[in-house]
């Protein structure tokens, strides 16, 4: 699946997107954030407070308990400040 990062999540991770094979045992968005946070310093920094990070699966907002099965694009970003 493709992971996308925006705004300060992107800056902290240090990349805009990457490909990832879903790790075994990871089934929800929240579990994926916790798994990413253990991947290295930059990920730990980006996901240090997962409660403030929003997520989208295939371009629709989802909550942390959303299932990843069937997802092809998952995005992580801070609360939105458009308009």
């Amino acid at each position, binding site marked *: 699946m493709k992971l996308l990062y925006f*705004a*300060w999540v992107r800056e902290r991770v240090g990349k805009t997107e990457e490909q990832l094979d879903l790790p075994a045992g990871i089934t929800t968005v929240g579990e994926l954030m916790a798994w990413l946070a253990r991947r290295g310093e930059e990920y730990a920094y980006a996901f240090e407070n997962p409660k403030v990070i929003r997520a*989208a699966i295939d*371009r629709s907002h989802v909550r942390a308990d959303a299932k990843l099965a069937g997802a092809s694009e998952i995005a992580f970003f801070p609360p*939105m*400040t458009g308009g």
Partner: protein
Amino acid sequence: MTVTIRLQREAFDVAAEVALLTRGRSDVGAVVTFTGVCRADEGGEPIAALTLEHYPGMAEAEIARHVEEACARWPLIAATVIHRHGRLTPGEVIVLVATASSHRQAAFAAAEFLMDYLKTRAPFWKQVEKVAGTAWVAAKAADDSAAERWSAPPPRHEAAK
């Protein structure tokens, strides 16, 4: 129902976009427009510019979902949402929301609904350039509560065709 949704880097002519809402029709009795403009300060500090980052693909889809929701709630004849991205300097237009209906209540309510949802649900992020460097604008709780008040839906009407 005429819907225009555009995300673009370039500036646009607000008056020309608003004129399109009524062109060639005689059933519009009310047009409400909201224009969001880049201020020269953020949180009391002067800024040189702001840069809007967005999630291409999702931003359009999310705005379209909210326009659809607005059409289900109010008898709209036309709606336009244009949101810029990239670097903007103070005085430049960031966003235009314009709604047209036979009567003012629907146009006012739908424009406000669309703006409240744009602020909290459309995937855009503002970064400002201050003297000390760049900073991401923090989301405001007041924007969340403004969007929250629409979450109890009023009775639906037959959408204007």
